[in-house]
């Protein structure tokens, strides 16, 4: 009898529970949406702090399984690959010798010109512990947070190019928006900064897994295979970092900009280790709040 009554109670109270839980979710969503526009992300930091151990476990389990399958599939090609690698080692040894000589020469020249080494940003190595579990967004989670000095909007890079920027930081983890995300953006130039006039801005094209470069003057010469570098004018990335390689150009005219697609330099689908650049862009001076002619009138 007691069980029957309970079932009836459950059936009667279910709509109330539903409304309560839905309201709780809406409140959390509203707070998160509001926080995303500011610097304080209370809900996200707390939930991420709780989720970090789970992500660590899943990352290790996924990595181990992936390695296991990878080893099985790659077993056949190991012998051929070994031969190739031996040849490659010989080549690299000779290249290394040459590059050591060049590096020494470079150092001497830099010393003579009293130039600061622009690539010596302080970096923090980090491991990718999770990828976005939903299909709708494109973020990764790294195992470094505020306890390691990571802050919001710090750039994240790999050895081959920029990866993205930090969008959420909890004490032991941080969420990174990939450069292929539609909301990601950076100032970029085709070729070397100072040599090329093909300046523009890049933003992600998640539907293609590429990056789109916009606002490059149609009068500038851009060809397939050109490298794209950051300009440092976006307030996030320092200048001179590799963005990627031009894979498609629809040439513009004098009045229309080029339409350029770039393949990211970093292998974003297979990221395991990245580095956070502990770089904070120089603060820009606030624009003048009052117009000069207004001041004149007051005087």
């Amino acid at each position, binding site marked *: 009898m007691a069980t029957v009554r309970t079932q009836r109670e459950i059936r009667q109270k279910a709509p109330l529970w*539903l409304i309560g*839980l839905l309201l*709780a979710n809406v409140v959390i969503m509203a707070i*998160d949406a509001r926080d*995303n526009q500011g610097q304080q992300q209370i809900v996200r930091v707390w939930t991420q702090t709780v989720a970090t151990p789970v992500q660590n476990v899943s990352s290790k389990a996924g990595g181990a399984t992936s390695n296991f399958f990878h080893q099985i599939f790659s077993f056949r090609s190991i012998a051929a690959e070994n031969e190739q690698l031996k040849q490659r080692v010989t080549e690299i040894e000779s290249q290394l010798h040459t590059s050591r000589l060049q590096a020494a020469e470079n150092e001497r020249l830099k010393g003579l010109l009293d130039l600061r080494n622009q690539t010596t940003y302080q970096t923090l190595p980090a491991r990718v512990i999770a990828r976005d579990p939903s299909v*709708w*967004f494109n973020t990764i989670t790294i195992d470094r947070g505020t306890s390691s000095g990571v802050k919001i909007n710090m750039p994240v890079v790999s050895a081959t190019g920029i990866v993205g920027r930090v969008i959420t930081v909890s004490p032991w983890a941080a969420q990174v928006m990939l450069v292929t*995300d539609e909301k990601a953006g950076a100032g970029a130039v085709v070729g070397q900064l100072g040599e090329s006039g093909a300046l523009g801005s890049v933003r992600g094209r998640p539907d293609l897994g590429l990056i789109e470069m916009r606002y490059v003057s149609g009068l500038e010469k851009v060809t397939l295979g050109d490298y794209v570098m950051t300009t440092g004018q976006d307030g996030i990335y320092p200048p001179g970092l590799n963005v990627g390689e031009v894979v498609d150009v629809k040439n513009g005219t004098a009045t229309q900009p080029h339409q350029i697609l770039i393949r990211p330099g970093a292998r974003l689908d297979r990221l395991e280790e990245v580095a956070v650049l502990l770089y904070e862009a120089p603060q820009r001076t606030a624009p003048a709040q009052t117009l000069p002619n207004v001041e004149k009138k007051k005087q």
Partner: protein
Amino acid sequence: MPIADRQLSIAQIFLENTLRVPIGPIGVRQLAISNTIMPQLKIAAVLALSILLQLSLRVLWPPLSYIDFPLIVVVYIALQRDAWRALLVGTLAGIIVDASSGGLIGAGGFSKTLTAYIIYFAATKVNLENPLVRIPVLAAATVLDSAIYVFWHRLLGYPPVLPLMQTISYRLIATTIAGTLVLYMLDSIIADRSAQQRQFATRRRVARRSTGTLRRR
């Protein structure tokens, strides 16, 4: 009062008040504990496993992320006509997945909770226990969950980065195929109710036979 008796009375109060289990002699108590707590532990374990799978499978092969494992578990529990568990599991699963995602926290919780309730409501009105009927239920749940999730993101100014129809279609196909298999597996893991129903069906059949014989005589 001896300590053992006091402990039993605490357990009795807990079972009666929290789990709403009628308590009888000691043997019945043990049976009640195994019947109420064990399924909950199984559900918790299955939910944890589904979340781990959801977090880790994308690393193995990115298209596997189109399968929504927590949603499959939510659908399964809702089909068992257990409203409280379905709603709670929906909210928990959604929020945990949201915490690791770039989307809004709570959007997944909202969509899974509402989906769980709608399936629970349908299951109380129509018999959805048939494995073939579960396939369209899974498909409908996937579409509903995706639509609600995207609706909240668009409403609050965070539109998802992928094309809507294409992503929903891929999710529909992947989750329905994987879900059909997973529901079959879950039936064998958490099949207390199914086993009970089978037992009752057998007993009813035996009872009908015997009463039929008596009537003929």
